[in-house]
């Protein structure tokens, strides 16, 4: 019995000794939350290790925080309890950074240890702003692209090197690709479908038709404008009039595509690597910008950003050091080649590393061009969760013929605007 007690006491001593910081070395411990899993998360973890090795005075503890919504929940709890980390790779970052407990990177980006802000695509700064002020650093960004099956194009008599460039062509191509292969009276090869998050592609149609999602002061959503109704009407026609897109099958769109049952797929540029792997060489993949609408080409960008939280001056300087390092041209290029996300800086695209990568993987050329030529940033606002869900429901109602585009969008907008009215000022 005594022996047991001695062991217990010893164990306690060891435990306590382990907790008390060893004096002498002044290494700063930074906590860094990141919301990317899969291969992307592994690349973030590798980058953090590399930063640690190059910065003996800073130790970064990278903590994976789950999906975007899970991370948002964690940030809310942490801000309320004042236990936020030093920095994070977090969606809707400008909203959090503008809160009590968050802080803007701007003084650091513009300071003596700053960066050339003009090197970063302007649209990314817009995406990282809240109410006109830059709060966060762009990091992983993507745009929706149109992927297509070149083999099916050839079979349908379409030029595989000339994907549809307008809405009219999109319909024509999709019609040629929609087929009942085994003649059982049911369509088993569709012309077009879209992967997941319907609202993102609707935003594309909306902007391509000259409409906007929300006013720039975020006081009111305006996706139910005539431009919006027309955009959703186009969507509805794809499903109900031309019958080239199956209703309500977005969740299995990528599966249909990689198994050769779908001609064209709208999906994030971030999905390219995954598509290539899952296709496994069964057919030749093509990638192109979304077709132009009546007002030309347009898409809205998505992704998460590097957010800094309010700590001490020294800690924030160290956090900025990490942010700056992660977005340096070479590291940004490395990140982009390993994940397929878009390089945020012009100089990153010019690096030999990235140019070699593009030469070997030409499909990756499309996304940066889309950002440069017609990428738009939707304003950051608090009701985004409600809005995206309401729009998705509206699209679903229209796809199944339960509401007209006008009625569906009006209902969705009313719901979101009611919530905006309750926003605490």
């Amino acid at each position, binding site marked *: 019995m005594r022996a047991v007690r001695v062991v217990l006491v010893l164990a306690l001593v060891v435990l306590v000794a382990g907790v008390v910081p060893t004096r002498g070395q002044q290494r700063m411990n930074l906590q860094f939350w990141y919301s990317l899993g899969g291969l992307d998360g592994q690349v973030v973890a590798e980058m953090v290790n590399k930063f640690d090795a190059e910065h003996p005075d800073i130790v970064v503890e990278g903590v994976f925080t789950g999906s975007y919504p899970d991370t948002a929940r964690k940030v809310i*709890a942490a801000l309320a309890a004042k236990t936020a980390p030093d920095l994070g790779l977090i969606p809707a970052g400008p909203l959090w950074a503008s809160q009590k407990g968050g802080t803007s990177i701007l003084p650091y980006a513009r300071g003596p240890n700053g960066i050339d802000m003009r090197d970063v695509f302007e649209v990314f700064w817009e995406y990282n702003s809240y109410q006109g002020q830059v709060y966060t650093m762009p990091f992983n960004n993507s745009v929706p692209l149109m992927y297509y099956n070149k083999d099916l194009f050839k079979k349908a008599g379409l030029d595989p090197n000339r994907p549809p460039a307008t809405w009219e062509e999109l319909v024509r191509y999709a019609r040629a690709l929609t087929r009942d292969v085994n003649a059982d009276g049911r369509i088993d090869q569709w012309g077009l479908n879209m992967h997941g998050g319907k609202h993102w592609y609707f935003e594309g149609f909306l902007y391509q038709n000259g409409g906007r999602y929300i006013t720039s002061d975020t006081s009111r959503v305006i996706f139910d404008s005539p431009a919006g109704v027309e955009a959703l009407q186009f969507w509805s026609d794809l499903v109900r009039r031309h019958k080239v897109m199956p209703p309500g099958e977005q969740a299995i769109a990528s599966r249909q595509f990689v198994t050769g049952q779908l001609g064209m797929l709208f999906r994030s540029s971030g999905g390219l690597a995954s598509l290539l792997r899952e296709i496994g060489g069964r057919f030749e993949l093509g990638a192109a910008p979304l077709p132009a609408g009546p007002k030309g080409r347009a898409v809205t960008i*998505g992704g998460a950003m590097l957010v800094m939280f309010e700590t001490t001056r020294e800690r924030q300087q160290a956090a900025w050091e990490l942010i700056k390092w992660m977005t340096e041209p070479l590291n940004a290029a490395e990140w982009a080649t390993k994940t397929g996300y878009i390089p945020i800086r012009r100089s990153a695209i010019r690096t030999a590393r990235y140019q070699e990568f593009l030469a070997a993987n030409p499909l990756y050329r499309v996304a940066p061009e889309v950002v440069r030529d017609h990428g738009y940033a939707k304003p950051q606002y608090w009701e985004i969760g409600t809005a995206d869900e309401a729009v998705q429901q509206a699209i679903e109602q229209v796809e199944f013929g339960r509401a007209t585009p006008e009625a569906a969008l009006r209902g969705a907008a009313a719901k979101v605007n009611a919530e905006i009215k309750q926003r605490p000022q």
Partner: protein
Amino acid sequence: MNRLVAVAPLPTLRTGRRAVIHLLLLGGAALMIFPFIWMISTSLKDIGEVFTVAPKWIPSVLRFDNYAAAWRAAPFGRFYLNSIIVAVAVTLSQLTLGALAAYAFARLQFPGKDALFLLFLGTMMIPDQITMIPAFLLMSWLKWTNTYYALIVPNMVGAFGIFLLRQFFLTLPRELEDAAKIDGCSRLTFFRLVLLPLSKPALAAVGIFTFLHNWNSYLWPLIVTSTTSMRTLPVGLRFFVAQEGATQWTLLMAASVFVMAPVLLVFLLAQRYFIEGVSITGLKG
């Protein structure tokens, strides 16, 4: 008591009916096992073979290295340890405290008993999401975030276990306790030597549910811990799921297999008690 008698063997079943029942059960079992087989099949595939038009049940090349790669992708050894510590501690605590509380609610007389019981039941109606932030603030105030305390203490008592055990205790004859008292048993001795052994099936059920619930728990551990070394297995599984692109399906399935293995083990072990418990209570009927 009738409920307990009903589970006695069914001797008078004709062969025809028995065959039909067995066929139905076999169909149900096949349906249940389908996702498991698919999981194991995918865990052994090359990523290029995961999505094919005619589903491929047997991979053309068996990639056993998926398991090694999945294990290395995150500190799963540590996650395992954490999950076992938390799930075992919570299950033991819920069984002990739950059985004591259930006994009190079933057999003792004290003022406010019904109101208190209702209050416990009421906690089952409140979604976790609502209490999450206040609970997190409390943990933070106690400086318990990122410790085993935060993972274990808030789950030490569960209304579901208390409710289930109380209902079960009520079905046991009061005469047992009276007889025990006459033989000189204290309440606690009766509880320990008579009531608990008779309640094995109910305890096994509560144990399985509690263990499973805590083994699978994701959001609370994610929110309340902020270092990789304090994370549990479900958070580990998330490491393979990408936001926009490269979800590592084969590794995710391989990891799911080894995350699920202990649960199957617990079920197989507890299943024995189910049957044992049923036979004991059956005798008494």
